[in-house]
């Protein structure tokens, strides 16, 4: 699947920033810097320009 270079750069910046934060940090709601219209007239998904600290997701590696 082709991913635009601008998005790849944003992903790199995002994960680099997240890696500097600790897993128990929580970004306060006021930090939300924009809302992104995903499907006009149906839903609005709030998103971060700068991500919150990312949880280490066990997904299904629980066994």
């Amino acid at each position, binding site marked *: 699947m082709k991913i635009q270079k601008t998005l790849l750069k944003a992903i*790199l910046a995002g994960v680099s920033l997240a890696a500097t934060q600790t897993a128990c940090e929580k970004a306060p709601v006021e930090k939300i810097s924009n809302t992104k219209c995903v499907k006009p007239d149906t839903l609005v998904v709030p998103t971060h320009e700068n991500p919150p600290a990312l949880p280490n997701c066990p997904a*299904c590696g629980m066994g």
Partner: protein
Amino acid sequence: MVFPAIACNLDPDLIQTALPLFETEKVAALEWSFDAVFSSEPLPNWFHELIQVYSKGERLIGHGVFFSLFSGKWLPEQSEWLQNLKRYCQIYQFDHITEHFGFMTGADFHKGAPLSIPYNQSTLAIGRDRLLRISQACNCPVGLENLAFSYSLDEVKRHGAFLNELLEPVNGFIILDLHNVFCQLHNFDLDAKDLRALYPLERVREIHISGGSWEFTRIQPEKPVRRDTHDDSVPKAVFDLLKDVLPCCPNLKYVVMEQLGTALHTQAQRDAYRADFYTMERILTQAQPKIPAKNNFVPPVLPPLGNPIEDLALFEQQRILSNILENALDYQGALNQSLLANSDWDIEHWNPAMLETAVAIARKWKNGW
């Protein structure tokens, strides 16, 4: 066409490791455990955009973790989970949605680890009812993953047939997790061909490969138990299983590689992850099916569902079992004295090393993550 995919969550180590694969357009599909972020919304912009790329390309698949399909009682968290799923399905276009077999241990049955249940008419009815509800919420094909953990050989042998019965009304499919199969082959000294014959492979739409770890038990120190912990590279034996099973899965669409970011800190680990992906891709390239899939697993049109099916006696047994696994010092003695004795749980035939492992799993995840 079978698409090579990765399990991708909001995990910086994992995404950083996979970035070269994204850059070179190698990742044909993305599997996302959408319910792992229910509590950490809003999503970072860049992650949302990444998911959207695969959503718009019709190559996004959703893999739930926390629904707890077989909780004997219908819980508020399950209604909430379905509401969240419905909401996510309006934002993202999932090609299918999957969940895990079993019920979650943990205080509210939505933390903890998925563990097995008795295979009887009551659990069959509960599982079918819940799958129909997931199907109604997401309006796309629905599947279940085979469980890695089993208490007994009999349970291992009956798992594939029970999955088939569960999935039949919803025209659902199986995620065949080959590392889970590898765990069972090792833990119960089974032959791969014998176990494969017990699975309805025409129901396999997705395959998982991953690594895991060895657990040394006190009761069986000479033979470690294999666990599906996703914290190491993919063993050669799992790639061999993949090569063997591919020709037997006529409706296969995705092969997904899973690994946790906690095991992707060093350069060597990251190199190994990408090498595993290339190995998986090479195997798939050599084994692309020549005949198109016959079953697209589109669910039937469903009538409105009534109240969720429950089994409160099962729920009580699950509460007792969770409590014993998480807290009891003499867990074998506590089980023998419990409501589970002489019941469909068949605790009298549980492998003692597997029981010790269940205790380790339940205690590892009892407080969630």
